[in-house]
């Protein structure tokens, strides 16, 4: 089957789907090769939050722009993916974390993003289940929560309606200049996008990506137990931990009224089994912030692998050593959030349109040659 396509996307997760849609909107007819089924990887394993992150200017630019794209799309089609504009509440446990709240607020406001600083009393009112002696918090009202398995289906269906094609159950074995080799034979394209999440480094070993394992716990239905996505301020520290294991308090209300509890990070290769000790640490942390979580009924615990890069920024752009190859991978815990901006940015680079955000910080070549 040596067909030639104008674009080939390896990976049918939310990043691949976004690339497919934006390319299709720009007149190409991409073929998506997905190993299992659309969204079966990290896309469906994660929390589905749409959060503007301030850990670096580049991360902010990408996540803020992407959240805007989600917000525009959500306005018209949000019910397709249970879009919930619940906002994010960053929580300060102690007095000394309030300085972090203030600097975060200053940064967001400086970038034109409206935020609210909450006193301890206001925090209690916003979230009655939080421990009453927390110091305060920061509300980012524009943040949202979505149900990613439905969102990725919708994006892919839209791409298909514009001429894209999806082949599920298709495993890519290797990658060469303007060609991939699958079980069913080679497929050629002038443009190949590697968007296979943490699996990307299996296909392209020189791409420096590691699977960063996370655990999640979901409860039965408890209407109104929490109203916002809630994160401890230490979350970003945990996300930046390069080694070892860390947990950070993160809960989220689902549209089903179930409570989703995270988060954990470990580098243990591809071992997807649930680690009871890590779950215990994660829950211990969560219960410190929300004591009555301990009494809720748990239905399920699972794991997923975030694709992590050394500097916590994704790879979006050309991979010079191989003709026609582009990368859109390495989004760590922000894959859902930044998927739209990633697809738009990469598509613009591919058709040589002026990109809407600076692609420099995401250049995949920034790590070549380094260790």
């Amino acid at each position: 089957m040596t067909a030639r396509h104008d674009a080939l996307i390896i990976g049918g997760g939310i990043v691949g789907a976004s690339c497919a849609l934006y390319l299709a909107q720009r007149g190409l007819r991409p073929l998506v090769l997905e190993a299992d089924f659309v969204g079966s990887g990290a896309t469906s394993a994660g929390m589905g939050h749409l959060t503007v992150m301030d850990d670096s200017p580049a991360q902010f630019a990408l996540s803020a722009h992407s959240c805007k794209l989600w917000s525009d799309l959500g306005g018209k089609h949000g019910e397709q993916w249970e879009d919930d504009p619940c906002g994010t509440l960053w929580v300060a446990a102690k007095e000394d974390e309030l300085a972090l709240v203030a600097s975060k607020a200053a940064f967001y406001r400086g970038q034109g993003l409206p935020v609210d600083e909450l006193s301890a009393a206001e925090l209690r009112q916003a979230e009655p289940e939080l421990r009453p002696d927390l110091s305060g918090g920061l509300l980012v009202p524009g943040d949202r929560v979505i149900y990613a398995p439905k969102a990725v289906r919708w994006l892919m269906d839209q791409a298909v309606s514009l001429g894209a094609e999806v082949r599920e159950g298709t495993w890519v074995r290797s990658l060469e200049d303007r060609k991939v080799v699958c079980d069913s034979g080679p497929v050629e394209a002038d443009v190949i996008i590697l968007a296979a999440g943490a699996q990307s480094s299996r296909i392209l070993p020189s791409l420096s990506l590691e699977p960063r394992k996370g655990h999640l716990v979901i409860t039965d239905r408890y209407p109104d137990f929490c109203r916002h996505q809630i994160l401890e301020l230490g979350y970003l520290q945990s996300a930046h931990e390069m080694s070892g294991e860390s947990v950070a308090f993160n809960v989220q209300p689902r549209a089903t009224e179930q409570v989703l509890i995270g988060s954990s990070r470990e580098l243990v290769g591809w071992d997807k089994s649930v680690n009871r000790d890590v779950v215990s640490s994660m829950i211990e942390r969560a219960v410190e912030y929300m004591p009555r979580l301990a009494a809720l009924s748990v239905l399920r615990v699972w794991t997923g692998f975030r694709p992590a890069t050394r500097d916590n920024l994704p790879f979006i752009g050309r991979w010079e050593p191989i003709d026609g190859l582009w990368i859109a991978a390495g989004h760590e815990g922000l894959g859902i959030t930044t998927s739209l901006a990633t697809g738009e940015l990469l598509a613009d680079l591919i058709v040589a349109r002026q990109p809407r955000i600076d692609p420099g910080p995401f250049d995949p070549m920034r790590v070549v040659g380094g260790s």
Partner: protein
Amino acid sequence: MPKIAIRIDGRRVETDEGSTVAAALINHGIWGFRRSPQGEIRGPLCAMGICFECRVTIDGEAHRRACMEICRPDMEVATDA
């Protein structure tokens, strides 16, 4: 059979000692215990702790399977049907 008293949705009722909460509800004419996610009224199906369709709130705790809980004097049962 000796009787005990429990409260169902605030109403005091008598039930056999040793009967389950599900039995107490059904014997008082209540077959619908709760609502499904789309609001359909549901009641016991399997009566052996598998299906979770018989869930009620007992003494303030949600998601208790009525078919598996024995009534205790002054128990507070709240349905959602």
